């Protein structure tokens, strides 16, 4: 279980996220919605250690220090970004290999003294990265440079990088942004397949239909605070949500 308690992020005097607590229960797909500027991405960045934040995060009973991006990763928390973060100087498969779950033989020592050992791990990393690319439908681009990929391909490359790490928790920041309807439904299917594999998923998004199709629980944020929490049906009939978010 991933527990975030009293997460606050402020820029100057303005709170982007104000004392938000959330629990991500094992095996669930949790959706977070909210109008633009409600602090969804900031909350995700805070949990991922990428934004200066206060509060506490606990993954599987271990306290994770904030503001240290390497720590959530070590605890099995992987994520994708709102603007796809792809390393354009590397090939697609290298992008994915960066986060490989097998992390042995990657140092200077590995490259000089223990090369057979390094190669063994490296071959596993290549195979796993290829499998991850195949899974998101980018297998044929493995050798290609990540520069000049289409927007949707960048998104999927990021997803491949995240799942190559064999995450226990996968957080996705607006994965459907910029995708057309067909691509969005393909993405939903992909996310459902991750969930079926036992990955616990946190999705921040705008597309209500997309979220309804994949989420088992939803959280609604407004101006940095949680205003509703429950199953998709409950949430979308909640008058506060209808008022604040749907603006009806």
């Amino acid at each position, binding site marked *: 279980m991933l527990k975030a308690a009293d997460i606050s992020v402020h820029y100057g005097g303005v709170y982007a996220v104000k004392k938000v607590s959330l629990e991500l229960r094992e095996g669930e797909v949790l959706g977070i919605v909210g109008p633009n500027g409600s602090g969804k991405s900031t909350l995700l960045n805070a949990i991922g*250690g*990428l934004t200066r934040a206060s509060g506490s995060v606990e993954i599987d009973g271990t306290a994770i220090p904030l503001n240290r*991006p*390497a720590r959530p*990763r070590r605890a099995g928390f*992987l994520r994708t*970004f709102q603007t796809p*973060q792809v*390393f*354009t*100087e*590397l*090939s697609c*498969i*290298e*992008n994915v*290999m*960066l*986060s*490989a779950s097998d*992390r042995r*033989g*990657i*140092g*200077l020592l*590995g*490259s*000089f003294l223990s090369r057979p050992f*390094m190669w063994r791990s*490296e*071959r596993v*990393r*290549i*195979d796993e990265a*290829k499998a991850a690319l195949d*899974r*998101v*439908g*980018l297998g*044929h*681009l*493995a*050798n*290609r440079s990540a520069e000049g*990929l*289409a*927007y*949707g*391909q*960048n*998104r*999927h490359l990021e997803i491949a*990088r995240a799942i190559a*790490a064999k995450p226990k928790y996968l957080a996705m920041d607006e994965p459907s942004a910029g*995708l057309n309807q*067909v*691509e969005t439904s*393909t*993405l939903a299917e*992909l996310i459902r397949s991750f969930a079926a594999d036992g990955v616990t998923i946190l999705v921040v998004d705008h597309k209500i239909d997309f979220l309804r199709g994949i989420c088992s629980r939803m959280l609604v944020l407004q101006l940095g605070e949680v205003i509703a929490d429950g199953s998709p049906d409950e949430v979308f009939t909640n008058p506060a949500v209808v008022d604040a978010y749907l603006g009806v």
Partner: protein
Amino acid sequence: MAVSEPGLTASKQRPRADAPAAGGSGRGERPALRWLRGRLPEYGPPVYRRHVYLQVVVFAALMAIFGAAFSTDSYRLGVMVTALTYAIAAMGLYFAYSLGGLFAFSQAAFMGLGAYTSAKVGDAHGFLTGFVSAIAVSFVVAIVVGLILRRAKHLYFAVGALAVAELMGLGFANWKFLAGDESGAVSGIVPMQIGGRVYLSAQDQFWFVLVVIVLVLLASMLVERSPMRRNAIATKQVPLVAQASGVPVYRIAIMLFAYGCALAGIAGSIEAHSIGAITPDGFGVGLAIDLYLMVLLGGLRSIWGPVVGAMFFTWLPEWLRSVQSYETVIYSFLLLITIIVLPDGIVGTLGKATRGLIRRAESR
């Protein structure tokens, strides 16, 4: 699982030269060369599919031809020794700067550290011990400096490295233990010597340095052909994302910096023992900038960039000797033109042109 190709629009669906089947063996590769290619499947990091060791062999052969052709020309051989020495130091900068993303303005100072260490130790225990301790001391000092500066980014690292360089310069000049005479100059350094064989003449020095640079190149190719490379490039491009993906960003940067400084130590040691005298000024900011220029001229994207850059940088003034008083003006202009005309460096531009030709040949 049937997943369509996401985001692949019709215009992007050109015939794929990049499909796995065409991977590394698509360009009519000879089986005899395949063992050089590494033992990997056809997909994988592109660097594993390049003939990097073959490149070193070609370089060594070219240099050997040069050495044979000018075997009686001590002057040219001497210039080449300088060029090769700079090439080693510039290669170090390739690892620290091009891969590690660190503005290592301390590279010249680390060359000095290698030179002074090697001269001091060599005086008491012979060249080889001095040479090895130069590498070890540069490496260890670099790790300490790297740890101290690990959170300093970009220009802040540059300023820190410059400060370290200044401190080292002061040390060379004033530290009684190292300093030769009052100004810090050391002379009468033992020549390069291995197993009773002394490498004193220009010819001997050339062949000795050639062997050293080939060994350095082979070691560097091992680093190139390892996970270090992609982790370093990722760290340099977006450190936070790399870190969130699990790349040990500090460790990677520090190790590359230390490796680069060890190469500076090698270059410094060779300089000290081939010339026989060193001064603190010889390893100042001027040299640091020159080394940067070599890397930029040659190209940042390949390890051959600094090698070619060092050659160009060392030989250009020699070729301009004939124009005498205009030398500096023409030299500066040529540098400027090179940087404007070849923004990717000499090697980068040549590489791009070659790839373009190959693509054209393939599409025909």
